[in-house]
């Protein structure tokens, strides 16, 4: 099975990830993540969801198999350039010491004030936040700043590892509300979630993992029909 057709942004072919103690995190995963869509990744804790995302940003490398970007193996791409094409946002907002502007310039040191204001606007944050200390931001503001920071590298895709799980309900709605805006900017989203309702709200496609194996990959309507989302909630 080939995962490298034109619509595939990220492909995994026979990918296995084994850690030094012998634990297998992913077993021979074959997967195609389409461009210009939102793919939600669901599965119980320990299913390998975060490992899947880390592979796509090359924070992990497969023990076996190939991860590819637009049909080219990541091993053949400049890792730094690739990471700027496929940004990553972590479960807990990771802000660097300094102001919000300092955080944004960590992604693009040459960004001028207008560019910073523009990217803050894209994530629904006010420009007045720029000079505020990063550690004075609320959880929702911090996570949106992390997304803004990732957007400054002009990525084609954003990998979001349960970006709302550490947030309260209002902050979750703020971050979730960004999905449409990001898609309007042409950013492909890969969004890990434990929340069945969130997966149904956000996803065009669904990938379900269990014990390191892909148990479903397809359109969100097919996932509903197959009971995948309900099944995941029960898990």
């Amino acid at each position, binding site marked *: 099975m080939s995962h490298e057709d034109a619509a595939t942004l990220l492909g995994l072919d026979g990918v296995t990830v084994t850690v030094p103690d012998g634990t297998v995190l992913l077993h021979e995963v074959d997967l195609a993540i389409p461009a210009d869509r939102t793919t939600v990744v669901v599965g119980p804790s320990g299913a390998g969801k975060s490992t899947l995302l880390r592979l796509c940003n090359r*924070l992990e490398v497969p023990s076996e198999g190939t991860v590819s970007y637009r049909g080219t193996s990541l091993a053949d791409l400049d890792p730094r350039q690739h990471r700027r094409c496929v940004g990553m946002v972590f479960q*807990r907002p990771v802000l*660097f*010491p300094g102001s919000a502007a300092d955080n944004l310039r960590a992604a693009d040191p040459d960004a001028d004030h207008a560019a910073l204001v523009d990217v803050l606007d894209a994530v629904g944050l006010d420009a007045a936040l720029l000079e505020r200390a990063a550690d004075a931001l609320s959880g929702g503001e911090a996570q949106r700043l992390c997304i803004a920071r*990732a957007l400054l*590298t002009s990525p084609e895709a954003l990998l979001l590892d349960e970006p709302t799980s550490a947030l309260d309900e209002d902050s979750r709605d703020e971050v979730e509300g960004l999905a449409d805006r990001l898609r309007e900017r042409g950013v492909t989203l890969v969004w890990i979630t434990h929340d069945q309702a969130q997966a149904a709200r956000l996803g065009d496609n669904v990938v379900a993992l269990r014990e390191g194996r892909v148990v479903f990959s397809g359109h969100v309507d097919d996932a509903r029909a197959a009971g995948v989302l309900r099944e995941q909630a029960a898990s």
Partner: protein
Amino acid sequence: MNPVAASLQLATTTAAQATAIGWQGVAFAGLLVVVAVLVSVQQRLGLQRPLAEASVRALAQLLVVGFGLRLLFAPDVSILWSVGWVAFMVLFAAWTVTRRAPTVPGLLPRAAISLGAAALVTLGTVFGLGIFPFEPRYLVPTAGMMVGNTLQAGVLVVRRVVDELTEQRAEVEARVALGQPWQQASRRLLRRSLRDALTPQVETTRAVGLVFLPGAMTGLILGGVDPVDAVLVQAAIMFLILGGTAIVSVALQASITGQLFSDDDRLVPLPR
């Protein structure tokens, strides 16, 4: 020979009797170890055995060193034996650094090179500029002070680097995920670990004389050297230790950090 070195040589030839305390003196001093053991018993610290073992072991080690140095310092013995002794000290110090941070790959040769470079520069300065005469009696103790102090800095910098990168892994990965090279992603943390490694020596240098009288100076005064001459010797040694500490910290950090990242900037697992 400069006046300080001349004064030292004169003092060492005349002060031997003044500082020969004999076994009786050691035994009296050892009574204080008994006091420490009694405190341990009274406070139920369970340190009686370690205290006794450490004291006996220290005495045994010092006696071995003392007899070894007596052989080295004999008039007809080549100074190359002393150079070999210093090389052994450097290797043992490197092994100690490695033992304190076993998770860092390839640490032993890097520690040996860093400590060796610091010893070479500092001792080269001491003997090259004629601060001390290049004789076994001066080489071995001076090297001991240099290597001992730089060893502490080496252990500290390696442990701080590992601790910082482990505790702040999330920050490093967030930076790497933005496409930063590992050197940039870890710069803030490495700078902090270097500062932490150098700070104790800076504080020691700052407090010297006011809070404590360091070993070399104390030994010289006990040996009958004029206190001002002893101070000059101590000042020279302190400056060299400070420089040696900086050399080891920077060299060791620079050489091990690359081992902690893959070619594609990923931070390797670092179990502590």
